C-alpha cells in the first residue's frame, strides 16, 4: 500500500480505528508521515465530543419527553360532550340560516320566472295534457317535479300544440288581415 491510499483510508475510517484494514495498520508501522496523520486524526476525533455535548442549554430529558407526550395527546380524538358541542352552535345556526334563505330564494326565482302563479303557469302551457291532471287546482304552488314535467312537455310536444291552438283560435277576419299586412320578408 502506498501513502496516498493509506491517507485516503485513514480519512474514511476517521474515529473508527477498530475498523482499520490490516494493510493500513501494516503501513502505519513502517511510515512515520502516515502515522503522524493517524495520531493527528485521533486527537481531532477526541475534540469533537459526542451527542450529549450538543444538548441545548437547560433542556432536560424529562421536559423533552413530557413535551412529546403532550403533542401526542393533542393528536388523540377528544371525547365529544354537550359542552364541547355548544361552542359550534352559533356557526351551525348561521349555516342553517344561509341555506334556508338560499333554498327559499331559489324556489321563488324558479316559480316566479314562469309566471308567478303556478296555476297560471300550467294553464299557459297545456290545458289538455297529463300535466294538468297532476296539478292540484286548489294549490297555489306546484312542486319541482311537476314544474319540470311542464317545462319538458312545453319544450317538446306541448310547444307545438300551443302554436296550433293559437292559429285555430283566430277568426277569418283576423287571418285575412294577417295575410294582407304581415310582411314576412321584412321580419326575416
Amino acid at each position: 500500500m502506498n501513502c496516498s491510499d493509506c491517507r485516503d483510508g485513514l480519512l474514511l475510517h476517521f474515529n473508527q480505528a477498530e475498523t482499520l484494514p490490516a494493510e493500513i495498520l501494516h503501513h502505519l508501522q513502517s511510515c512515520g508521515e502516515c502515522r503522524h496523520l493517524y495520531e493527528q486524526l485521533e486527537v481531532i476525533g477526541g475534540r469533537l465530543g459526542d451527542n450529549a455535548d450538543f444538548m441545548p442549554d437547560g433542556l432536560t430529558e424529562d421536559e423533552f419527553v413530557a413535551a412529546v407526550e403532550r403533542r401526542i395527546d393533542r393528536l388523540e380524538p377528544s371525547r365529544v360532550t354537550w359542552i364541547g358541542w355548544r361552542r359550534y352552535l352559533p356557526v351551525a345556526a348561521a349555516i342553517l340560516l344561509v341555506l334556508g334563505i338560499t333554498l327559499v330564494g331559489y324556489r321563488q326565482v324558479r316559480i316566479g320566472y314562469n309566471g308567478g302563479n303556478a296555476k297560471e303557469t300550467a294553464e299557459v302551457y297545456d290545458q289538455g295534457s297529463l300535466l294538468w291532471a297532476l296539478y292540484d287546482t286548489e294549490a297555489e304552488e306546484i312542486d319541482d317535479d311537476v314544474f319540470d314535467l311542464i317545462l319538458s312537455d312545453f319544450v317538446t310536444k306541448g310547444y307545438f300544440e300551443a302554436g296550433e291552438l293559437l292559429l285555430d283560435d283566430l277568426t277569418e277576419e283576423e287571418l285575412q288581415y294577417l295575410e294582407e299586412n304581415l310582411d314576412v320578408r321584412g321580419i326575416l
Partner: protein
Amino acid sequence: MVTPIDKALDELVTKAKAGDKAAFSEIVRKLMKPVVALSYRMTREQESAVDLAQETFLSAWQNLKSFRGDSRFESWLFAIVTNKTLNHLRSRASQPTDRIDEHLPDPVDASDPERDLVQKQLREDVLEFMASLPEQQRLVFDLRFYQQMKFEEIAEFTGKAPGTVKTHYREAVRKLRAFATGKGWH
C-alpha cells in the same frame, strides 16, 4: 450483532407499535440526545433543534406502523429528523432571518463555570466547522461520526451511491483537519 440495548429497543418498538404510549416515551428518552444533537449541529439553532426533534418523534408515533424493521429503528428516526431539518434549512434559506444561536447569550451554569466554558467553546468550534461544510457533507459527516451509521445505511436514506457518500465523508474529514490546524487543536 444484536446488543442488549438494541434488543431492549426492539421490544419497546414492538410495544409502541401495539399502541403502548409508555413504551414510546421510553424510546423518546433513549434516543432524544442523538436526534436533538443532529438537528442542532445541522441548524445551529437550539430552539429549532428541539422543536424539530419533537416533531420527529411525533411523526414517528404517527407512522410507527409503517416501520417494518428492515433497518435499525435509529436509522429510520434519523431519516425523519434529517428530512425535517433539511426542509427547515431550505425554508430558512428562503427567508432573510438571522436566528443563529451564536448571537444569543447562553445561560450561565454557576455549578462549574470552567467546565462549561470549555464545553461551550468546543460546541462553538464544532458548530462553526459544521456550518462551513456544504449541506450534504455536513449530513454525511454527522451521520457517520456522531450517529455511527454505516456508509451503506447513509447511502440508502440519502439516496446517494455509497461511493459518493464515502467521498463526502473523506472530503469533510480533510476539511476538518485543516480547520483543526487553524484552531491549534494538535
